């Protein structure tokens, strides 16, 4: 095995018991996304299921060997049928368009959501191949572990310290791209305490498959406790540069020493990650 992933593996083991189905939402956005998904599916199945049945039925009944079926070699046009085949799908789509319109606006990732208490701002930086979560108000920097108090609206600001990828916690809701030099915005809320699976959902290079993280929803007290548990050398620009090099990382929580770190990354005052060493076939991922 060429990849050492002991730490990542243990965190995954802890998770493997639980389901991460999007039909088992644990956040308000995920619940609404799933609801819309199911609604749209239902609207469409109303027309698709009869269609599927008709295909099989017509093909079967009008098989050449069936002498009871009437052969009508000249039946090639019928105004009524034409009307129906255009209007039924059109009506279905009209209905669907309503869902699309309302859904896109209500669930726009940038739209703020309600919840208990003051919104918590979390700054997310995707790196090769790990996630850095900055808590500007709590002055924390957490690697590969996203912790959030249950019920509090989360205001995520996201960027990338390297290539483009996407941030996604299936059971919390919508994913969003992260891009260097830009800030994308996502609003989420976790509604039930627990450990959830978070991942990168856009290919970002050789370490992509290991670019997942733990998303923990905890009670307000536990969250306060967690913010106190930061240890080790404060996280600053130099530490960031070290982290930005290609490779994997273990979860860690450190105090944040550079309050402007996020904006420095976005404005490229801190340049994007260096990528692989130039060579024909770069060496594979090492921890």
């Amino acid at each position: 095995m060429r990849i050492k992933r002991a730490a990542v593996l243990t965190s995954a083991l802890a998770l493997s018991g639980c389901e991460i189905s999007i039909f088992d939402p644990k956040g308000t956005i995920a619940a609404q996304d799933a609801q819309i998904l199911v609604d749209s599916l239902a609207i469409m199945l109303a027309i698709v299921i009869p269609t599927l049945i008709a295909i099989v039925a017509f093909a079967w009944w009008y098989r050449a060997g069936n002498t009871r079926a009437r052969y009508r070699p000249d039946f090639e046009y019928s105004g009524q049928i034409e009307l129906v085949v255009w209007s039924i799908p059109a009506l279905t789509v009209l209905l669907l368009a309503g869902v699309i319109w309302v859904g896109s606006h209500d669930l726009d990732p940038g739209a703020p959501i309600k919840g208990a208490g003051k919104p918590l701002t979390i700054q997310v930086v995707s790196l090769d191949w790990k996630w850095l979560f900055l808590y500007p108000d709590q002055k924390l920097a957490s690697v590969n572990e996203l912790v959030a108090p249950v019920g509090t609206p989360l205001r995520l600001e996201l960027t990338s310290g390297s290539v483009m990828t996407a941030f996604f916690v299936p059971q919390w809701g919508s994913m969003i791209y992260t891009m260097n030099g830009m800030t994308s915005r996502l609003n989420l809320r976790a509604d039930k305490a627990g450990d959830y699976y978070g991942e990168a959902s856009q290919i970002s290079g050789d370490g992509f498959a290991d670019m997942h993280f733990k998303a923990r929803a905890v009670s307000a007290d536990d969250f306060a406790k967690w913010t106190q548990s930061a240890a080790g050398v404060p996280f600053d620009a130099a530490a960031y540069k070290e982290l930005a090099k290609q490779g994997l990382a273990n979860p860690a929580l450190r105090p944040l020493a550079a309050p402007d770190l996020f904006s420095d990354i976005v404005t490229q005052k801190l340049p994007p990650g260096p990528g692989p060493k130039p060579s024909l076939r770069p060496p594979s991922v090492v921890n």
Partner: protein
Amino acid sequence: MLGKLTWDAIPFDQPIPLAAGAVVALAVLAVLIYITVKGWVPYLWREWITSVDHKRIGVMYVALAILMLMRGFIDAVMMRTQQAVAFRSNGYLPPEHFNQIFSAHGTIMIFFGAMPFMIGLMNFVVPLQLGVRDVAFPTLNSVSFWLTASGALLVNLSLVVGEFSRTGWLPFPPLSEMTYSPGVGVDYYCWALQISGVGTVLTGVNFVTTILKIRAPGMTYMRMPIFCWTALAANLLIVAAFPVLTATLAMLLLDRYLGFHFFTNTGGGNMMMFMNLIWAWGHPEVYILILPAFGVFSCVVPTFSGKPVFGYRSMVMATMAICLIAFMVWLHHFFTMGAGGDVNAIFGTMSAIIAVPTGVKIFNWLFTMYGGRVRFTVPMIWSVAFMITFTVGGLTGVLLAVPPADFMLHNSMFLVAHFHNVIVGGTVFGALAGMTYWFPKAFGFRLHEGWGRWSAYFTIAGFYVVFMPLYVVGLEGMTRRLQHYDVGAWRPWMMVSVFGVLLALVGIVLEIVTIYVSIRDRESLRDEVGDPWDGRTLEWSTASPPPEYNFAVLPHVDHEEYYWRIKQAAARSETLPEEPHYVDIEMPRNSATGFVAAFFATVMGFALIWHIWWMVGVAFVGAYATFVAFAWRDHEEHVIPAETVARNDHARRAARAKALKAYSPR
């Protein structure tokens, strides 16, 4: 002297690609030697390589496509087996290799498998259905084919010399920029597609012109078979969309080669622009893949239902509607970039609207079967399987067009399942239906029904067993392109899926057996008359295989179902139409332009990839010289004397006359 090319480029340290490459290289070499020893080279050169006959070119396109589908299928088998074993382990394919595989799989399947297959069918069928002798620009047609082959060659070369792109079938920057992909993989990708892209645009120009300007007398637009309409739509899409791809890849190449800043992280580049432009091409591209398949089904279903296609005008309208709306939906591939509610909603709605004309098509095929006498031949089996499978795939597509749903499913295995559902269930089934349907026209004998049927059953079953589990894991949050994973819930589905790929493999092997058996038993499968299925369109009025000039005299079309009508009239009166007056026929001469131009293009592409600048220069001069030499030619045509035409046509008429007695009119 050789730019970046050194011995390091050969992957001596990676046994799998090295062995695979060596085997392929040896196989190619063996075939070449065999051909040479057998003395077939002059024949191949005269009859195929330099041929500008649309039928020959069509056959070569399909052959290339089948080869590439197999290459892509091998990649698919590797991916499925990797994901079956790579649970909490690294599997047998390291990431740098796995990433090349899905990139190569997607690229090869789309650009060198599915698209050439469709273009091949159009090449073979369109002039025959229009009742004419050839396409508008026969030599250009040959250039198109050979440029496509050149691109395919370059992609496959990357297996042994250097590496292929690791950034997916569409190279999203900044990952594909020099900083993050310093190897030659992305360059292979870009140059291969630039070269074959030129060929594709030329095909588009050629076919739009052919369909709009070269039709048999009396073949008005509303008398064209639906396949010609879908071919027109697909080629309009090619002409309008492929230049966007060319421009976008050119920008990426400028970034990579000359340090421009179109899509870079730094220097004022904007990577979102790449996403925007590539999908402005990419979405129309998927309709380029599916529309000709729709055309195939619009030939197959009426023929085997013994009825004209239902709702001809609706079909035409739906085709052209899809062609136009195709250009108004591209943002649905990046709903998750954050364009905001209005933009997402409008593009989501436009995407859903495509379901209407597509639905109309499904329903019209349905009503074509209604009141028919459906014969379940192999093409018809593919067609019914298509109708069911494609409806399911379209449904999941529309689901993805609902932005909040897409926020959960984008880039997931659900998406992977969606597009295989429409591509395999639509384009690939259509390709195989079309191949089986027109095979007797091309070669003069049918494919064996029994074996072909089993091949279809296994392939269809294989498809469902591979991809239905992927929907499930997609809903369980599994993202695409994972080299390994640690989530236990996904594991069982991966095991089911790998079983499906085995079924598909059996299907493909049976397809090869079908072809083998059919060639062996060709005498008993012979199509003497030229109309083995009781067809309705003009291609069935000529001999199988058709003479070089297709029709002894151009038909004078006076009805949508012209051939069907004269056939019925002849059967009723038990006499063939009067013998026409034969005249000399002028046909374009063979030309090596395509082959030579593609040779230089390949050399130039290779030299550009490896920065061998002198070789670039040499190849460019060579290409220009070919061009001028072609332009300087004096005689572009040769003449087939009326006597020859008459002799051939008498044979055809005799076979028809004999068959007339056995045919019962409807």
